[in-house]
């Protein structure tokens, strides 16, 4: 099992409790922390005073390490090793992947309210996509033409998905009663019937 979380989530009691249990029960678990340095507006330094987030594993008695999260190959390697440990019954691993949030938190966030554009632009030099591209181009395993092809394919796939969503009608109002219980209790069935009646203007 791989659990992916952010730097902010490591401050939650739930995370500490999960590590405590993982230490005792030694489940086949990899906790992958994408430490992008910002939990909305709260920077890593204001989130936790520990030198690393990976070291939170030490107190729980499980393995932990940091990896350069902007190095896709390094992340692949360390996660694979942690998965081997998990499969071999050697217990859980915390991996802290160090990266940087180049974008806003969400489309309703405006990161310029709380961090400098200069800080952000410096981190673009460490863009993991550019690094992987440079490395693979050096190996003659990647080309501009191939990349344009990949990007065009991906863009087309996303446009198609967006068009599908925009062209779809909303779910029927009864959808909110789906997946609530395996068998809908009679009281809820009555509410569902009421919603249908309201949709039909029959109230």
């Amino acid at each position, binding site marked *: 099992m791989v659990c992916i979380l952010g730097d902010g989530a490591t401050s939650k009691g739930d995370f500490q409790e999960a590590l405590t249990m993982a230490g005792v029960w030694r489940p086949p678990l990899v906790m992958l922390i994408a430490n992008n340095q910002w939990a909305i507006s709260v920077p890593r330094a204001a989130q936790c005073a520990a030198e690393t987030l990976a070291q939170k594993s030490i107190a729980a008695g499980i393995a932990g390490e940091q990896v350069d999260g902007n190095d896709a190959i390094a992340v692949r390697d360390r996660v694979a090793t942690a998965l081997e440990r998990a499969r071999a019954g050697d217990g859980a691993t915390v991996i802290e992947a160090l990266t940087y949030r180049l974008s806003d938190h969400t489309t309703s966030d405006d990161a310029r309210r709380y961090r400098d554009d200069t800080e952000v632009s410096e981190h673009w030099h460490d863009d993991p996509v550019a690094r992987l591209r440079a490395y693979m181009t050096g190996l003659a395993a990647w080309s501009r033409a191939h990349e344009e092809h990949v990007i065009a394919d991906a863009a087309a796939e996303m446009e198609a998905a967006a068009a599908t969503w925009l062209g779809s009608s909303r779910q029927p109002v009864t959808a*909110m009663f789906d997946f609530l219980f395996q068998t809908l209790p009679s009281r809820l069935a009555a509410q569902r019937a009421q919603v249908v009646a309201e949709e039909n203007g029959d109230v």
Partner: protein
Amino acid sequence: MSDVTMVEAIRLTLAWAMREDPAVLLLGEDIGKDGGVFRATDGLLARFGPERVLDTPLAEAGIAGVSVGLAAQSFRPVVEIQFMGFAYATLDQMLNHAARMRTRTRGRLTCPMVLRTPCGGGIHAPEHHSESGEACFANVPGLRVVVPSSPMRAYGLLLAAIRDPDPVVFLEPARLYRSAREPVADDGTASALDRCFVLREGADVTLVGWGGLVPDMLDAAERLAGENVAAEVIDAATLVPLDMETILASVAKTGRCVICHEAPLTGGFGAEIAARLAGPGLLSLLAPVERVTGYDTIMPLPRLEDAYIPGTKRILAAVRRAMRHG
């Protein structure tokens, strides 16, 4: 006196309270430079400094727990929990500690804290950003629960909550943050924390509700007037302690009551009002008590939220059912 939105009124209240009492502190996620995700604390860090406006780590149970300790030691913490769905993580601290501090210490320690959080749908967010969980807190002995529904009432009620000597859960309907403007005096006048607001008088039916549904109740009353039905509209505002006297007096006059809330029906706070009507109000009733509420389902995704949130149409239907009696 200027016209402000509800979120601006809340900001004015926080600033007033911090100016009048140096013990008032704000704690929450992203409330500093970012000014809170809804901007309720915008500018307060610059004005009052980082020792009074604390951006916290992402740890709601910790935020509530620290505030319980601060409150017990003479501070007046006002906590912002970013969304209602994150407030449940504070329940252990609020229920087991904040609400019980005075009792356990037999009055030696108290817990004058306020826990603010947005509530309700209508902002096109996922379900854990859109809930109405007031009943969870209203069932905890020792907590006051307040839900404002206009800029003016938000100002008076939040100021009263901050000045109150006991813990108050203050639930802010997110879709009302910027939906309307109203003059707010910003003169430090608090409202009573145990009074309903009668927003419109009428002799035929009582509409009682709170939070995000209050504008719909007023809209329904306006339409009913065109049908020669005079609806009395009561914003309950403070659920605990509830001003049942005002509701009972209204129902004694109208004989009919339609209770409106966005939270699910079963175990919702409307059931408490209905139960009290069935007691001391029973002999006033000409018609069965109606409840217009959310369904007993999880808040659906944005495209369906209008089908979940009870609006004017469902309120009108309930009133018409009630008017067939008597």
